[in-house]
């Protein structure tokens, strides 16, 4: 079987209150998800500025996923509702510019959903791996 040379780099922005704890739970339960997922903890998913997403791609990420509390469960009451609008607009714009839509994703993962976290990451990594290297939002200076 041909081994796929390229191992994608995934940046996952996880909200401190739900998704980060969800990732922890996934670890505690020994659930596997690829080590290529680099988690960045943020106080709330709405802390994620669209610039963060682009910067992650610039610095070599092949996929960016943002995880937050389920709608209605935000620790700060409404942060993730804003996230939802912002990311819908941003992802749609990236798609408009021809950047593969599978490279970006927003998911709601609660602190109790370790299994969902692992499954989400596995699925996301698989999709991004299928796309191959990020060529459309890359900065060659960071690639060498």
């Amino acid at each position, binding site marked *: 079987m041909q081994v796929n040379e390229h191992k994608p780099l995934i940046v996952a922005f996880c909200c401190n209150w739900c998704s980060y704890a969800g990732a922890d739970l996934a670890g505690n339960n020994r659930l596997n998800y690829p080590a290529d997922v680099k988690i960045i903890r943020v106080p709330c998913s709405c802390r994620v500025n669209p610039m963060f997403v682009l910067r992650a791609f610039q*610095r*070599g990420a092949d996929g960016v996923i943002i995880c937050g509390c389920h709608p209605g469960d935000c620790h700060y009451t409404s942060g993730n509702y804003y996230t939802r609008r912002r990311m819908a607009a941003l992802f749609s714009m990236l798609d408009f510019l021809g950047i593969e839509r599978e490279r970006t994703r927003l998911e709601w993962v609660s602190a109790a959903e370790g299994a969902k976290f692992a499954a989400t990451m596995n699925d996301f990594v698989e999709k991004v791996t299928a796309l191959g290297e990020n060529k459309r939002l890359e900065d060659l*200076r*960071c690639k*060498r």
Partner: protein
Amino acid sequence: MLKCSLDKINSVFEEIAKTAKLYIPADDKDGSAVYKQWENGIEWSSSLNTVRSPKDFFLPQMENLMEFKTEGKNIEVIDNRCETEDFVIFGVRACDVKSFEVLDRVFLSEPVDSYYASRREKGVIVSTACSKPSETCFCKTFGISPEEPEGDVTTWKTEDEIFFKANTSKGEALLEKLSAYTEECDETVVTEQKEKISAIMAKLPLKDLKTDAFGGGKTEEFFNNPVWEELSGSCLGCGTCTFVCPTCQCYDIKDFNTGKGVIRFRCWDSCMYSEFTKMAHGNNRITQKERFRQRFMHKLVYYPENNDGMFSCVGCGRCLSKCPISMNIVKVMKKIGDVDA
């Protein structure tokens, strides 16, 4: 003088491209002209000039100067300069050819800028006379001849022919290579075209614009003129004029951390930007008035003071057509110098 039928121009380009990278003005998708590397299928634009000036060839908008690798407390400086390959820029207008001289005086003066010098040595400039100048042209104001531009080779283009004249040894070497496509001829047609161009130049709206009021040593005369306030009042503070200008040469040096090392690069900067002179503890050009004044004083007074009276404007007219609010050096010269044109 040599000539060649325009039918054969693509063969000429092909011949040049065999030994050097060839750049010609070609039409972009939106109809404006841009310098493109020639390859089969790229046609010489009939536009008067390119939107961006050809200063890019010698002073690119952005270039890496060096790299650093850091490890712990140690730094390694990596000098990865390499010699430029030979290249030819074809169809450069008289104004732009002159702009290289303006840049030379900055970058080739001691200490010589090796990045610029390398490209300048390897580049061959083929100029083309302007048979159809625009209303925004005012190169004559600066003593430039659109009838017979400078450059390593001067060319004149008619309906069906192109005429060549070498001005330097670099130019002669280039024409030598083209001998299979060219034939000797007299100067009748070219002289005729030159006369035609002179007649057109005399009809241009800016034909009477003069530089007499400006030059070195006039700082005191103009610096505190209250008119700067009015002129700069509408300036948006964008960098369009400086970036399309063939003689604007100010640059910034910045570091970019790639995660694997640091690239120190140079990029164009604009005196119109608010942070151009900003230091940790202050800025000596606080409002747009001072920044605006700096740009025009530099072109009309400071530069000539340091360069034997040569102005740092070549009258290409790019800022006239590209400024978002149509404020430009002509309006400044007329107002400040009270030059009636």
